[in-house]
C-alpha cells in the first residue's frame, strides 16, 4: 500500500562561516526524495569591490589574496594582468614565464586541496587530506622562498613580481617536479579503486554537457563535461600560446570524473 505524503520544506544551513561552502538550502521534500532546492547565498560577501574603490591600485593587491585563499597567487596574477592591460604595461618575457610556472604550481596545490577536502566531505575525515597536504606543503615552502608567505602571498606586481627568485628555489622546484608523478600514482592507488569512494561518487551528480554549457560552471566542475575550451580563462588571459593546460573530458560529467 502506497503511503500518501505531502511535500514539505526543510531548511538546511546556513553552516558556520568557518566551514567551506557556507550557504543555506531550502529543500522541498516528498518523503525522502528532494523534489526542489533553492540555494540561498550571500553569507560571506565581503564587498571587496567596494573596498577597492577607495584605494590605489597597488593597495588592492593583498585583497586579491583573500578572494580565494587557496589560489591566492593566481588571483594576484589575474588582478595584476588586468591593471597591466589598463595601463599598457609590458611585462618582461622572463617574468611572464615565471608567472606561468607559479600559477601552475598554485593550480596543483589547489587541486590537491580540492581532492583532499572532497574526500573529507565524503566522510573520510582527515586521512586523505593529509596525504594531499604532504605535497601541498612542498609547494607552500616554494612560495615561502619567494615572498615569505605561506597563504596570502601578495607576490605579483604590475609589470612582474615583487622580488627576484632566490637561488635555492630552482633546485627545490626541480626536485618537486621530479617527485610529484610518483605521488600521483600513490593517490591513484589509494583512491581510484576504493570501494566507498566509488559507491559514493559513481553515477551521482551528473552534469550533462548541454546543461554544462547552458548553466556554465567554470573550471573543474566543467572539465569532465564535453567542453573544447575548458581552460578558457587561463589561456585567454595569459599571452603565451605555447603553454596551454591540458584538460580531461568524458561524455558525461559525474562526480567521479570530476575527481579524476
Amino acid at each position, binding site marked *: 500500500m502506497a503511503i500518501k505524503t505531502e511535500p514539505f520544506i526543510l531548511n538546511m544551513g546556513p553552516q558556520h562561516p568557518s566551514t567551506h561552502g557556507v550557504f543555506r538550502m531550502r529543500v522541498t521534500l516528498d518523503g525522502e526524495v528532494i523534489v526542489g532546492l533553492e540555494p540561498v547565498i550571500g553569507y560571506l560577501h565581503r564587498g571587496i569591490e567596494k573596498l577597492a*574603490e577607495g584605494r590605489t591600485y597597488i593597495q588592492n593587491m593583498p585583497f586579491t589574496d583573500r578572494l580565494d585563499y587557496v589560489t591566492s597567487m593566481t588571483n594576484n596574477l589575474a588582478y595584476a594582468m588586468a591593471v597591466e592591460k589598463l595601463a599598457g604595461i609590458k611585462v618582461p618575457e622572463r617574468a611572464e614565464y615565471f608567472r606561468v610556472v607559479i600559477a601552475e604550481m598554485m593550480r596543483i596545490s589547489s587541486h590537491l586541496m580540492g581532492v583532499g577536502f572532497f574526500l573529507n566531505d565524503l566522510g573520510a575525515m582527515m586521512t586523505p587530506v593529509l596525504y594531499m597536504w604532504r605535497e601541498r606543503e612542498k609547494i607552500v615552502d616554494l612560495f615561502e622562498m619567494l615572498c615569505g608567505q605561506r597563504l596570502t602571498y601578495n607576490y605579483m606586481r604590475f609589470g612582474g613580481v615583487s622580488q627576484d627568485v632566490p637561488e635555492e628555489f630552482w633546485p627545490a622546484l626541480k626536485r618537486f617536479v621530479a617527485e610529484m608523478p610518483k605521488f600521483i600514482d600513490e593517490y591513484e592507488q589509494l583512491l581510484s579503486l576504493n570501494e566507498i569512494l566509488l559507491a559514493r561518487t559513481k553515477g551521482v551528480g551528473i552534469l550533462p554537457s548541454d546543461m554544462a554549457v547552458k*548553466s*556554465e560552471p567554470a573550471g573543474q566542475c566543467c572539465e569532465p563535461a564535453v567542453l573544447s575550451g575548458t581552460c578558457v580563462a587561463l589561456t585567454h588571459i595569459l599571452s603565451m600560446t605555447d603553454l596551454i593546460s591540458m584538460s580531461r573530458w568524458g561524455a558525461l560529467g559525474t562526480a567521479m570524473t570530476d575527481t579524476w
Partner: protein
Amino acid sequence: MTVALKGEDVAKKLGEVFPGAVVASDKVVVVVDSQHLYKVAEYLKNTTGFEFDYLANLAAVDYVDYFEVVYHLTSLKNNHSLVLKTRCYGREKLTVPSVYSLWQTADYQEREAFDLMGITFTGHPNLKRLFLWEGFEGHPQRRDYL
C-alpha cells in the same frame, strides 16, 4: 587559445543587421543600445560564425553618469570571445532586458546586479535580491552608497 574578436569588426556586422543598435565600439568592446540588446544577444548566440553559447560573466559597472552592463561571451565551438556592453542612464528605474532565456547563467548574475546596483532586468523569471535580504534599502555596490 581563445581568440578575442575585435569589437569594431563585430560592430560593423551588427550595424548591418540591426541599424542603429551599435552605440560605440573599439578594439575590444561593442556597446549596443539597451533597446536592441536582446535581439543582438540572440543574434550573437544563434548566428553561424559567432555562436556564443557560453556567457562567461555578466557584471554591472557604475560610471556615475550612467550604468554599464558587461557581457563576456565565449563560443566554445569557435573558440573565440567578445565583450558586449549596454548602458542605461540615470539613477532610478534602470531597465535592461534579461538574457536569462538565452544563457541560464544570467540568472544569478542578473540578480546580483539587481541587488547590488539596482538594475532591473525585464523578463527575468525570479528577479529578487541575491545576497541581501528583502526589505534592505539601497544598492551597496553603487558609487554613491557609502
